[in-house]
């Protein structure tokens, strides 16, 4: 393997700064401390950005941008790279003018300022958010050119805020309550009905993300985070919670986010993001620069709880080896897995599959399609395949 990388240089690189030469940047001062009061990535990482699929929607005010999972490491998504899905653009809300109203089947209808919400006992939890439509393009067969576009409506952050339960209790939930309506303050007035059971379980009213206040496109100054369920429920720019006895049947739980089956009927309130995994390194678009040792790495997650085990295949599912899970393995959070691999230059078909703690196993595409057909949009969580060619090129292809 040493031979493969000896003298390896990316296009445009020179040997003027490699041993035995003293690199130029040791001979002159760099940029000063405090030059960037709020920092940004190296210019050399300019390719690591969220990307929109042009033409996917007639208006970029309602479309998605994708997280570059193939360029990321560990389990957290930097705030600048968290995928987006907005239905009326990103509002610019002055936090002093933002209010959260809680009403309906409650003892005391209340309005909270951001100040009020910051005074509640706070909790911080790491959870993934995945759009229900993530990976939809792969249902009918390999489609997109990289894991950014096949799986990039997925992110993972440390969320800080108040348990939704605590906010509802402050208003006093009345008997008979079964559902909570959550409404956003964006131009789409995004609205979903959340089962009270989930609202009282682990849902959070969130004002901070990875240590700092929410980013505008993640709901600044306030959002819901409903761990494990389809991300559309995690209403951004949260302005209103109404407690009720029935669901509201909003457009986003009837026309959208319902799963049309081959018999013409649609599954409704199919909120859970079932267990799923994907290999991120190597993945489509990568090129293996040399034979020999490397590590296969990926992400696994389950809306039902913790990841229990992951297996990896390099021959398209004929043989499987158990992967190592990276601690901490948190519930409803991304879990990094890895497997050592000695690549000898053969064509390889990389796959991963995950079991979660409920015993659920990530299905193959064939299994999923046999039950759900090819026309439904949401909740596609089948095993993904990447092809490694003898040239080292990795593509989104199946055998």
């Amino acid at each position: 393997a040493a031979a493969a990388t000896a003298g390896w240089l990316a296009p445009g690189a020179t040997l003027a700064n490699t041993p035995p030469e003293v690199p130029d940047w040791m001979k002159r001062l760099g940029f000063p401390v405090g030059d960037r009061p709020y920092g940004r990535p190296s210019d050399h990482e300019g390719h690591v950005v969220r990307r929109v699929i042009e033409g996917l929607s007639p208006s970029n005010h309602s479309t998605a941008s994708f997280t570059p999972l193939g360029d990321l490491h560990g389990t957290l998504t930097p705030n600048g790279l968290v995928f987006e899905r907005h239905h009326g653009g990103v509002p610019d809300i002055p936090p002093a003018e933002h209010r959260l109203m809680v009403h309906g089947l409650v003892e005391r209808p209340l309005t909270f300022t951001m100040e009020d919400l910051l005074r509640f006992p706070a909790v911080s939890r790491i959870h993934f958010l995945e759009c229900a439509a993530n990976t939809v393009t792969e249902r009918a067969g390999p489609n997109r050119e990289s894991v950014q576009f096949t799986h990039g409506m997925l992110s993972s952050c440390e969320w800080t805020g108040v348990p939704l339960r605590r906010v509802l209790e402050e208003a006093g939930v009345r008997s008979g309550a079964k559902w909570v309506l959550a409404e956003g303050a964006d131009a789409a007035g995004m609205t979903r009905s959340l089962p009270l059971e989930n609202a009282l379980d682990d849902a959070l009213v969130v004002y901070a993300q990875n240590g700092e206040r929410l980013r505008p496109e993640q709901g600044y100054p306030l959002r819901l985070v409903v761990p494990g369920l389809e991300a559309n429920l995690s209403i951004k720019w949260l302005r209103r919670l109404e407690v009720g006895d029935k669901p509201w049947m909003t457009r986003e739980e009837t026309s959208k986010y319902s799963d049309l089956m081959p018999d013409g009927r649609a599954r409704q309130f199919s909120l859970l993001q079932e267990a799923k995994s994907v290999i991120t390194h190597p993945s489509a678009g990568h090129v293996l620069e040399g034979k020999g040792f490397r590590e296969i790495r990926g992400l696994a997650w389950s809306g039902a709880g913790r990841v229990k085990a992951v297996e990896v295949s390099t021959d398209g599912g004929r043989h499987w080896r158990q992967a190592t899970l990276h601690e901490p393995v948190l519930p409803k959070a991304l879990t990094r897995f890895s497997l050592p691999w000695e690549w000898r230059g053969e064509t390889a078909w990389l796959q991963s599959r995950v079991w979660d703690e409920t015993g659920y196993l990530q299905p193959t595409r064939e299994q999923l399609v046999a039950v759900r057909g090819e026309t439904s949009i949401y909740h596609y969580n089948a095993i993904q395949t990447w092809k490694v060619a003898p040239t080292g090129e990795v593509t989104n292809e199946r055998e």
Partner: protein
Amino acid sequence: ASADAGPPAPLGLGSEASPAEIDGWDIDVRPDGQGLPEGSGTVVEGERVYEVHCMRCHGIFGTDPGWDVLAGGRGTLATDEPVLTVGSFWPHATTLFDYTRRAMPFDNPQSLTVDELYAVTAYVLHLNDILPRDAELDAESLPEVEMPNADGFIPDPRPDVEPQAEPPAEPAPRVR
């Protein structure tokens, strides 16, 4: 409210929301009509609202592709190319009022009057052959509109795929 020891004492945070304040913000509408405001509108009035505020994006008959298709598609749900519209797919007419009120026109939301909302709701239902040309809608009649696909929705039956392999016998190796 909860199953266990009961809710904790309030912390005294937040301010009382008055009925007038709630009224200004509570824009949702439920299938049983809860939330529908006073007012009314006819299909004929709705045609005019539609032409002025909706047609440029959704087309003359609500069937233009590109933006969301609003009409047509009946009988396509069980085919390879299902067309999901208000008429072919939506289970409740109230959702149309609620969604139009909060989100349409896409680039000018919350701009229509209550009467305009009833009217354009009636017109889109008419485009879907659900209401006749002489129909009128108000808080009482809207929840009673019968939608063609009202029975088309079922609860989540998942997990719906049998695991086809046993989990590994050994517990997963871990690294920190």
